[in-house]
């Protein structure tokens, strides 16, 4: 019995002796949108931003990339600091708060009742590589729906798709490009939503 226990302990020690590569965590953060002329239709309204609907691959901190059309891999040494679905939701809240389009903007965690709810569906938020993995671009594809909470009906919707080339074919450049594409997407969304209130 003693020998069996010693054998298991040895196995654990041998397992823990293996080293893993260092992982760099990246943040999703769209820089704030300011000094833009937005419409005033929503000035007296309140908005709740619901958590974005994403595919399961964006619900993990694993940073995935696509090679060619169909192959999907995950970076070994890079990861998201936060699940993309949460991070994108927070980015939407932050950008809308900075624009002052609405009287108040709350996240889905808030208990307050609002006039409108913004639902978002992220169809793509990833880095794409060519088959030879020498060139890369990022793609952001998000659909927005503005819902009137009194009637629970969609007041307006908008589909925005952005594609930006990546400077260098690596994770950091990909993250930078994704953040830039997200910023452009949120700017376009802000302009659309500012004129969508009834």
């Amino acid at each position, binding site marked *: 019995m003693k020998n069996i226990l010693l054998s298991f302990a040895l196995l654990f020690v041998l397992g823990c002796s293996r080293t893993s590569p260092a992982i760099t965590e990246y943040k999703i953060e769209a820089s704030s949108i300011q000094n833009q002329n937005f419409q005033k239709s929503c000035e007296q309204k309140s908005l709740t931003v619901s958590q974005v609907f994403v595919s399961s691959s964006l619900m993990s901190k694993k940073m995935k990339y696509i090679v060619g059309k169909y192959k999907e891999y995950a*970076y070994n040494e890079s990861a998201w600091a936060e699940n993309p679905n*949460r991070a994108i939701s927070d980015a939407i809240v932050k950008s809308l708060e900075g624009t002052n389009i609405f009287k108040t903007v709350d996240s889905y965690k808030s208990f307050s009742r609002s006039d409108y709810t913004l639902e978002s569906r992220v169809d793509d938020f990833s880095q794409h590589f060519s088959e030879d993995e020498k060139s890369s671009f990022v793609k952001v594809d998000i659909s927005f729906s503005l819902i009137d909470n009194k009637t629970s009906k969609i007041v307006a919707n908008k589909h925005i798709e952005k594609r930006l080339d990546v400077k260098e074919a690596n994770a950091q450049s990909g993250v930078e490009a994704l953040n830039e594409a997200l910023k452009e997407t949120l700017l376009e969304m802000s302009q659309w939503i500012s004129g969508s209130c009834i």
Partner: protein
Amino acid sequence: MNNKVNYTLIGILVLFGLSMMFGFAYWMLKPSTDADTQKYLIYFNESVFGLNLDAPVKYRGITVGKVTRLRINPKNTEQVEVTVDILKSTPIKENTVAKLTAQGITGLTYINLTQGKNDAPPLRAKSGQKYPVIKTVPSFFEHFERSLGNVSSELSSTLAKTQQLLNQKNQEEISRLLQHSANIMNKIDKLLDEKTVAHFQQSMNNLDKITYKVDHLIPTIDRFILKSIAWEKDITKSFDSIKDTYVNMDKTMDNMAVSFSDSALTFEKMSHTINNTMLESQNMMIDLESTLEELKRNPSDILYKKTEQRKAPGER
């Protein structure tokens, strides 16, 4: 017996008595002196039948003068000029009027003076007049005659209109109307035969019975009304009670509504919290699923990490 009669004394006494009688008659019939009376003229536009010389002139029933002359007015033959002497003490004024008045059934007439307002000025002779002229008013007979004349003319007018109304055509119409009336009366007469009259009498009897019954019923109705009033009071109390109950129910419902609202709010918050928790759980489940998938693919990874790692672009 020596019957010595002093005829001289008797003659003296008789003469004295006669003189006293004449003196008394003279005193009685002595005309007033000109110094005591005033002459007035009165012009009548009517007949002065029954008015004689020395006929009295009365002021409110008191003889104050007499008629001294009667004649046709030489300037207007339709008038009779009567000259009267009236005591100066009589208040003859501008508005004094003379009226011929019959003296009983004798046919004699006297002149009656009537005064108007007391503050009127005394009557004076105007320029061109020898004596003051007293105004006249028609006598009763004159007035009656005039009224009679008016009545006569009105009667004549009425008769003319009646004659006009009763022309041939209207007479025919009236005849027809009378004929119709007769027909209607005949029909009514037929209608009101003995049977109908009996029915009518029966109806009246029935009405009488109904009235009798109603008279007897009224006290019952009164009692019913009194009971109704009491019943109404009871009903009012009941309604008040129901109203109070409803008010209390309303308050209870309000409280329940508040409770339900609070519960709904609490439930909503709870639901919200559960929803957020479920979202977090979903993320965790996806991570767990991914990990389990990797372990399923290579169970030895749990200790030795034997799976070969593919180098991602940009990774060393």
